[in-house]
């Protein structure tokens, strides 16, 4: 077993092995998990947002404007603007709502010049809360922000997919006497996925490639740690002094993301094969001919 108690005496590979297993590096490795958790949580939540957005965009007039406006605005504006905006705006909205409920007899305005002041009981998380609660709250805000932005993207994809389902399928369902609700859930929803998948897989790639923006939302993610660990370290402050290695740390992140997107590409390709099976599309027809 390697002993890392005296790094100055170590050399070459054993030095590297000790260096790469310091406490801070362990935090760095954990942050890769943070990214994966973010993807795993955000993807289904934004799909749900997108589903409701698409349903709204197909609905009666006032609701339709809401749905289509939601889709249109996110398109015209860079996503990073939304990220920076929502992370503060959501925080202030939550605190303001709690402030109204918890401190009804507070008479000063909430915005005083350049400050946003709510009563102590309305602070989120409470000033007395432990550190981990602050981190979880920050992460939750990030997830909601991602879900709002990607929900709009997903809504656009699903809206297109719902319109792509052949009209004859819906008419047949109506001819069998199904109600609009039954037609929607039993005919439209099961069939739309094959039309939605190319757009959704594209979206999945975009989601993966948007995860480094977590850094801008104030989360200690892989970008944060790569900058922190890679910076020049002098012998005064660390047992493992080294020069400016940030380039190599970011190279490692590049490789990580390339691997992630490559694996996703392969998996999504397989999934598409599976979903196309037996569908009334050119892809499905091609598969049928190969099998026959």
């Amino acid at each position: 077993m390697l002993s890392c108690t005296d790094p100055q005496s170590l050399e070459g590979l054993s030095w590297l092995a000790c260096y790469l297993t310091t406490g801070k590096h362990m935090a760095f490795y954990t942050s890769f998990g943070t990214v994966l958790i973010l993807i795993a949580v955000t993807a289904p939540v934004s799909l749900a947002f997108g589903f409701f957005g698409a349903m709204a965009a197909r609905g009666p007039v006032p609701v339709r404007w809401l749905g289509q406006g939601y889709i249109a605005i996110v398109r015209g504006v860079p996503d990073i603007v939304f990220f920076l905006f929502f992370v503060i705006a959501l925080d202030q909205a939550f605190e303001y709502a709690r402030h109204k409920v918890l401190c009804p007899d507070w008479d000063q305005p909430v915005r005083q010049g350049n400050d946003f002041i709510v009563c102590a009981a309305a602070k989120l998380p409470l000033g007395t809360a432990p550190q981990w609660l602050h981190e979880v709250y920050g992460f939750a805000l990030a997830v909601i922000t991602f879900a709002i932005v990607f929900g709009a993207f997903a809504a656009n994809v699903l809206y297109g997919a719902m319109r792509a389902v052949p009209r004859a399928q819906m008419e047949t369902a109506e001819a069998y006497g199904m109600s609009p609700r039954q037609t929607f859930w039993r005919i439209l929803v099961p069939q739309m996925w094959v039309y939605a998948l190319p757009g959704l897989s594209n979206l999945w790639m975009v989601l993966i490639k948007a995860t480094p923006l977590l850094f801008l939302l104030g989360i200690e993610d892989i970008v944060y740690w790569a900058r922190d660990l890679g910076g020049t370290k002098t012998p005064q402050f660390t047992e493992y002094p080294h020069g400016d290695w940030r380039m190599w740390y970011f190279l490692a992140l590049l490789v990580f993301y390339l691997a992630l997107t490559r694996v996703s590409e392969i998996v999504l390709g397989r999934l598409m094969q599976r979903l196309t099976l037996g569908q009334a599309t050119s892809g499905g027809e091609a598969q049928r001919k190969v099998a026959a």
Partner: protein
Amino acid sequence: MSCWETIADYGLRSVGIGERLLPRSDFTLCQQVVLIGSGMIWNIYFGILALCGGFFLAVATAVGKASGNRAARKASEWFIFLFRGSPLFIQFFFAYFAFLSLKSVSPVFDPFTSAGLGALAVLFLNTAAYSGEIFYGALQSIPKGDLEAAEAYGLTGWTKFRRITFPTMLRLAWPAYTNEAIFLFHATTLVFFSGFPAWQQKGDALYYASYFADKTFNPFVPYPIVAGYFILATLVIITLFGAANRRLNRHLPQERRAKLRIRPMVIR
């Protein structure tokens, strides 16, 4: 202080002309609109130069990927994979720190550590990879009949490419390329958040917007201003590319002309 004075002081602040210090307190709406608008100069600079330069590399990449030459095909495929498979944000960081390290090797890399050149290089390569894939897709879907007709007329090699393949490819790729132009333009907002320093606080629109949001702790004014500017810019892009699209399709019979969809894909 009237708004005209503010425009005179801060209208060109992002390129270093005018008042040296940014406003520090009592921010007026006029100051925010002017300074953020001044930052748009950088977004437009990055967007136009990267797009124009990237266009040529993209065509080369697409032709390379579609060619029979194995070396050219592999090189193009790897180039596209490298830049499309990783986040632009990380590419910026990596490029900045790489240029910083290379600076000690040769002074040639010195200007690349500034946003104006270093980030432009990354954006140029990035958009070339994305557009290269778009153009490759278009190359693959050129109608076989068009190429056969060209050959029947005796067109070969360069002449055939210049007269038939290239214009048809451009025509087919144009709606997707419009989308790419919009997204590249949006991507320019990442530059000053990704290592590249905003020297003397000369930054882009989002840099100034986040400056105001940090100082006032009120996101509801500066971010909608940036959003407004970008929606305007998106509309300009759609108009310009729509005009180009009409020109590319003008030889087709009226009903076959592909209309540029007002709302193409939402994602890159």
